[in-house]
């Protein structure tokens, strides 16, 4: 496979595309779009944890800022959909550049905590800055037309755009992982001193991976704000950083399809448990416990292990 897909992954990819095509007929399109946005977000996060071994606890900052920026430029400046989403990604990447530069000097749990602390500063900025609308958020953001001409008012039109963005991001991540650059990243994950002794400028590699991850997280957040028509503090606060960790763990860390499946699972839990009121948090908690005890590799990881495939 020229694109770096193994046979099993190619089959899985075809299945994924097929699911994306039929999904709007099976589930509510807005729910499907939300899952795609979170799927991209979790895949971006997985690029760091799964392939470089860096646990970021502050990815909400890039996701949330992406959402705010896209919502702001679409509502106030009237930018078209693709520009708004790219602007969100660009700001996410920029914040990632600064934070990544500070954070990659630290190892292990301290890396995780410094990303968390930096992200909380972004959260604080968002509560204080006037353009975010504080607790109310940026509301009633119009769905900007694609290229300024193609209307996105119809859920299905927007769905195909979001699906396109998701697939592009997903394939980009896959391509990065299987490029020579990605091989170096994995070498860093396995044995950093060895990678250094082989002459790689490890910090540069880590930083680039961090920026790419933050950029894609920003894109995902921007896409989400277009889907729902608002951007609020929920997306930039620390529980969101935690949720993306949970999604990736549920699906399977270091598997290319895992984060997407995890996002689907997580979204389904949030949405379909909602009618059970009181029991939402209890069931969520029970599922996380079950996940750690019974299938630690995550759904896709366990499946791949059972079938002896790399998915």
């Amino acid at each position, binding site marked *: 496979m020229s694109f770096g897909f193994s046979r099993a992954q190619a089959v899985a990819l075809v299945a994924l595309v097929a699911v994306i095509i039929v999904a709007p007929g099976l589930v509510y399109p807005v729910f499907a779009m939300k899952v795609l946005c979170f799927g991209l977000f979790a895949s971006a996060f997985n690029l760091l944890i799964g392939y470089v071994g860096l646990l970021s606890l502050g990815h909400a900052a890039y996701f949330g800022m992406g959402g705010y920026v896209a919502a702001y430029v679409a509502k106030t400046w009237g930018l078209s959909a693709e520009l708004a989403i790219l602007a969100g990604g660009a700001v996410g990447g920029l914040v990632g550049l600064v934070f990544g530069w500070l954070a990659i000097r630290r190892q292990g749990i301290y890396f995780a905590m410094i990303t968390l*602390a930096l992200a909380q500063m972004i*959260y604080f900025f968002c509560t204080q800055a006037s353009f975010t609308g504080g607790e109310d958020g940026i509301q009633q953001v119009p769905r900007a037309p694609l290229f300024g001409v193609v209307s996105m008012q119809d859920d299905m039109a927007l769905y195909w755009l979001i699906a396109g963005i998701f697939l592009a991001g997903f394939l980009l991540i896959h391509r990065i992982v299987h490029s020579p650059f990605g091989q170096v990243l994995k070498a860093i994950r396995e044995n950093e001193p060895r990678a250094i002794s082989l002459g790689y400028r490890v910090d540069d590699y880590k930083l680039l991976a961090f920026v790419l991850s933050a950029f894609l997280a920003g894109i995902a957040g921007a896409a989400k704000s277009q889907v729902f028509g608002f951007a609020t503090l929920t997306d930039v606060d620390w529980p969101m950083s935690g949720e993306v*960790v949970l999604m990736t*763990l549920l699906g399977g860390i270091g598997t290319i399809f895992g984060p997407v499946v995890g996002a689907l699972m997580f979204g389904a839990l949030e949405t379909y448990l909602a009618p059970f009121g009181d029991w939402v948090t209890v069931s969520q908690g029970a599922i*996380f416990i079950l996940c750690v005890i019974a299938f630690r590799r995550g759904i896709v990881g366990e499946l791949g292990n059972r079938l002896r495939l790399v998915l």
Partner: protein
Amino acid sequence: MVTIFGKPLLLLYGQLTLGLVNGAFYALLSLGLAVIFGLLNVINFAHGALFMLGAFVAWGLLTYLGIGYWAALIVAPCVVGLFGVALERVLIKRLRGLDHLYGLLLTFGCALVIEGLMRNEFGSSGVAYDIPHALKGPLNLGFMVLPLYRAWVVIAATGMCLATWLLIEKTRLGATLRAATENAPLVQAFGVDVPRLVTLTYGAGVALAAFAGVLAAPMNSVNPNMGSNLIVVVFATVVIGGMGSILGSIVTGFGLGIIEGLTKVYYPEGSAAVVYVVMVIVLLLRPAGLFGRAA
């Protein structure tokens, strides 16, 4: 009147004292977290939920059994500690040798279940727990009038921190504990039942959280969400102090309380964010926290 940056000095003294009270809580909670992390290598995200359980057990003892505050101060940590022992035996034990991430996820799941069940039972607006009679009333410090109860909180928390520190640093049990933190297989080879030590340590760390919960019950609203607000700050305290460092978490706890107290005077909006600012600065200057050793 003497002023510092436009604030009367007496007001600042008052705020420093209040910061000390909050610092006592941070120290007590992060101490438990640090003890658990040191030996189990588990980041106990259920700590906030167990803190809350401590407060609720105190309330339950009073409401259903008529057992008052002073007894609750001992009974509630024991009850919650036993619960922690069970939790360790049934769930956390299975995490040995795994990445931090799984411990985080598992204990986070536990916190969700515990908080959810408590909300189902007691609602979200909470229950009332009164200050014990002997500790009602004011204490005039000259520069401010501090409620007697807050003074007691500082004394009790400091005493408990000191006792824990002495236990770990100066006793034989503490020496075993520190050795097991260093190198568990070796200690096991010397005939120490390390798994039991681990279980008891978790129970003790949890009991510390519950103790803090009982102390907090008369001051704060006793409700199922009371711990989830604190957990991130406490978490930050442990990191700033240096993961697993007992002294680090105690010192940092009090220090953060005071810094937070001063922020509340000069820039109240930023009093939650200041913890993170401190964390970033400390981690940039000292890679493993104030008292931690580099990995």
